[in-house]
């Protein structure tokens, strides 16, 4: 995937995490729903964030992948 795609997933995940947390804080959603949303979104957001800042814009070396 492209760097922009990882950034988009990171931003969408962050928005879901923020909404889930804020919704539970305001009491407009049951706490279990916020926990489910966080459990499903936090890993995706974390890995997408890492992959986003890891991804390069330019061509890199071809890594040695074994014989």
């Amino acid at each position: 995937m492209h760097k922009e795609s990882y950034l988009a997933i990171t931003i969408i995940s962050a928005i879901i995490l923020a909404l889930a947390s804020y919704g539970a804080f305001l009491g407009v959603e049951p706490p279990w729903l916020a926990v489910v949303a966080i459990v499903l979104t936090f890993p995706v957001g974390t890995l997408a964030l890492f992959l986003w800042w890891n991804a390069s814009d330019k061509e890199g070396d071809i890594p040695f992948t074994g014989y």
Partner: protein
Amino acid sequence: MIGLIIPAVFVGLLFHGIHRKVIARIQGRPGPPIWQEILHAFKFSFKQTWIPKTASMPMYVFIVAVSIAIWSGAFYIVMSGGSLLLLFAVFMLHKITEHGLGLSSGSPYGKFGAIRSVMSAASEIPLFATIAGIYIVTGSLMISDITAYQAIHGPLLIGAFPIALALYLVILSKMHYGPFSIIEAKEIVSGNRTEHFGVWRAGLEVAYALKTFVLLAAFVLLFVGALPWYLMLLAMIVVLVSLSFVCAFTPMLSPFDAVALQTVVTGGVAVYIVAMGVI
């Protein structure tokens, strides 16, 4: 809610750093700075990342996300005073992720780690004893009820010491560089984590930081009781340092000895529970 889990990841990584520092000082080495594991996680996240040719791609990636997800769930179970049975379920899922982690890469070292993970399933047996013992003593499996029980009757660490010992052994079996860390022993490189590098390893660092935080918090809540957050952190560090001492002084056991020792402890706790029930 997300405002709690992110600090927990950093505190968990800091705990890993303290663990390494204490082990190093006991062994007469200067050791890394205590924030080293935080830097490690960031370092891995910037490393070049790809998926090995021999790997089962969906499983190789998915297992990292699942590891983070289950310990995120466990974090909320413990912090909200949820059921011990759910925490036990997370432990079972963690065992599956350990196994899947090793198998997904296609590396022989990873597979050895995965096989050892299955063999060391005995490390979960003391958890059975802990859950049964706590239920017999307190009459509930909800962490909130157990902390309320301790507020009236005093810490279970004193009242039911053998049960605390069983959970201590479970946590010890999940610590890095411990006597039961056979799945990541150096003779099999890094065991089941061998082929997870770069971003995938950074993701695992996040998951394992949460795991350490959750296990230490669960131990303090179950056997000391509910404390203000600063005393809670202090108690967690005390438990952690004691675990580091054990890890520093104890050589890694062979896989068969690890299983035998864990089974013997479980048997001892079972005898204690039966005796307690009879009395």
